[in-house]
């Protein structure tokens, strides 16, 4: 049962002067999917969204929504819902009037407007604020109303432009859950723009990681996390320890790397066939490093002796900084575990599996 393609971008390109902001962007979004555009500011994600919304026209390439070519179609004719970072509620209208705005423009009969407005306010769990003005609401409430205003017109596509960036951490998490729930309940095809990798991983069916106007990788959150296509993707998503190294030998898909920090490790070459002698950047994530007693047997795994430098408590877990050779590696440890009681200067052994090492040729950009 394959769902139909709702949105298609074909080799979309946009330049401002001599600056290429979005280059060769192609993407297909299936009906009901939630796709995030993720990247640092200036990566072109917002420009791409603005082209889909119709606020900007691409220099070349095509944008299709629900089987209709959108190039040249003004934004007020695209039947989209959009939520902005700054809420953008009309300050001179009550909540009910804000939500009804799009319906009035569509000449929906009054009784039906009333019914649909109260239904959508129920959906965002704010039925009691209909007669208030936006400035009488909290930031989180305002954003919920903005979402309601976008959803009530039953848009063919919902665009969310950094909707959580203006909220504090606690509210952001709450609203993130809310958006996920609304997406599941309404099933509306959604594009979510964010610079926050956690939001993207949490909300999306697929993520488009972008940097400097280029698509680095398109994949499910799991693929993006576990099979990063580029060094940029690996470093932008989550924390990782960087170890510049040289390939000592390559055999049977296993690389032996000599880290500049002064130790060797094994890593899979993942079909990249890097020749011996080439300079690479190897990465290991903090949660993939294990601490063991000095001299512990690592078996087939990589291991290196080290010394604890400092321990930072972060709630459910702690980060332990370990000096190994000339490198300093961050290790994530459970707060409840024995390792949380280590103190600076304690000798330890670091152990990690070869398949947890990511090797990149060292020419790509990092985040």
């Amino acid at each position, binding site marked *: 049962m394959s769902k139909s393609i709702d949105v298609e971008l074909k080799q979309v390109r946009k330049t401002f002067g001599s600056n290429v902001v979005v280059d060769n962007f192609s993407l297909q979004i299936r009906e009901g999917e939630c796709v995030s555009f993720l990247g640092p500011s200036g990566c072109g994600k917002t420009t791409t969204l603005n082209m889909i919304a119709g606020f900007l026209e691409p220099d070349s390439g095509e944008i299709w929504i629900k089987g209709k070519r959108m190039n040249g179609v003004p*934004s007020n*004719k*695209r*039947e989209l819902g959009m939520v902005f970072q*700054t809420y953008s*509620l009309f300050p*001179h209208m009550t909540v009910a009037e804000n939500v009804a705005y799009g319906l009035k423009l569509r000449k929906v009969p009054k009784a039906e407007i009333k019914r649909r407005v109260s239904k959508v306010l129920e959906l965002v769990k704010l039925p009691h604020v209909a007669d208030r003005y936006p400035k009488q609401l909290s930031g989180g409430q305002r954003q919920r109303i*903005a979402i309601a205003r976008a959803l009530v*017109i039953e848009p063919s596509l919902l665009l969310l432009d950094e909707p959580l960036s203006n909220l504090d951490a606690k509210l952001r998490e709450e609203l993130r859950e809310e958006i996920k729930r609304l997406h599941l309940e309404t099933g509306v095809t959604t594009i979510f723009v964010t610079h926050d990798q956690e939001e993207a991983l949490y909300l999306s069916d697929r993520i488009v990681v972008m940097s400097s106007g280029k698509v680095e990788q398109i994949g499910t959150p799991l693929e993006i996390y576990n099979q990063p296509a580029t060094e940029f993707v690996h470093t932008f998503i989550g924390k990782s320890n960087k170890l510049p190294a040289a390939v000592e030998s390559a055999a049977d898909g296993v690389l032996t790397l000599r880290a500049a920090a002064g130790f060797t490790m094994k890593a899979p070459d993942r079909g990249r066939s890097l020749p011996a002698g080439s300079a690479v950047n190897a990465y290991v994530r903090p949660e993939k490093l294990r601490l063991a007693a000095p001299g512990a047997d690592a078996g087939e795994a990589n291991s290196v002796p080290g010394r604890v430098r400092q321990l930072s408590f972060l709630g459910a877990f702690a980060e332990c900084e370990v000096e190994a050779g000339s490198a300093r590696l961050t290790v994530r440890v459970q707060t409840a575990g024995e390792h949380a009681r280590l103190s600076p200067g304690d000798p330890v052994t670091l152990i990690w599996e070869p398949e947890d090492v990511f090797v990149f040729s060292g020419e790509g950009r990092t985040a």
Partner: protein
Amino acid sequence: MTASRKVWRALRNALLLLAPALVVLLVAFIIPMLYMFLLSLQDPNGQLSLGNYLRLFRDPYYLGILWRTVKLSLYTVLACLVFGYPVAMFMARSSGRVRGIVTFLIIAPHLISVVIRNFGWVVILGEKGWINSLLMNLGVIDRPLKLLYNELGVVIGLTDAYIVYMVLALATSLYAIDTSLYKAAGILGASSVRKFFSITLPLSLPGILAGSTLVFSLSMSAYVTPALMGGTAVKMLPVITYENIMITLNWPLGAALAFLLLGSTYALVTLFTKLVETRRYKEVFSG
């Protein structure tokens, strides 16, 4: 004890700081006003009487002039709104540099005396002025249009004099509108016209109110422009007030005219403000 002493000290400091301004206001404004008011209540024999005011309200000549003054001031407000709004919108959408240039351009003419600017209009609008010669030469008209020494001339002159206040007041409230509101309205399906009437216009109400109040009060009390561009045919309240005090030397009647002007301006501005400041307006724009 200490609290009340603190209040006292704050009050004393405030009074000390205000004293110079209060003295100037008292000597140059309040005392003359009181004097004028007493003057307006005197009959020709110096007796206390309401005669001057009764005369103003009974004589159709004065009532006619009051009506004309109000009417032409309203026309001026409308003309300033119609011609000023596009300029203010342009300013609100421009970059800081362009905005600075436009602000300078609309303020620059005011560096020249209003008398000279009005004579400039005489050159442009007169029977042998530029507009009439151009239209006659093009064959559009065969007799010169009467653009001066009538109500139209006064409204043109007042609009030129006061439109800058309207533009600056409107521009200030237009800057304050978050431009993402236009995007939001657009994506919900609003056309440009719809955006203007549903977003721009209602959110610029404070600017419209401030600009209109300013232009209206200034037009009501304008002397030079009505005198020069209306001539003897289009007399307005400030002009006949001046005539009574300086030419016929009927100071009591002149003073009564001045208070009629003050009272009617104040009443109309208050009425207008009350009409605009609905409950919703206060809800949206206060605080």
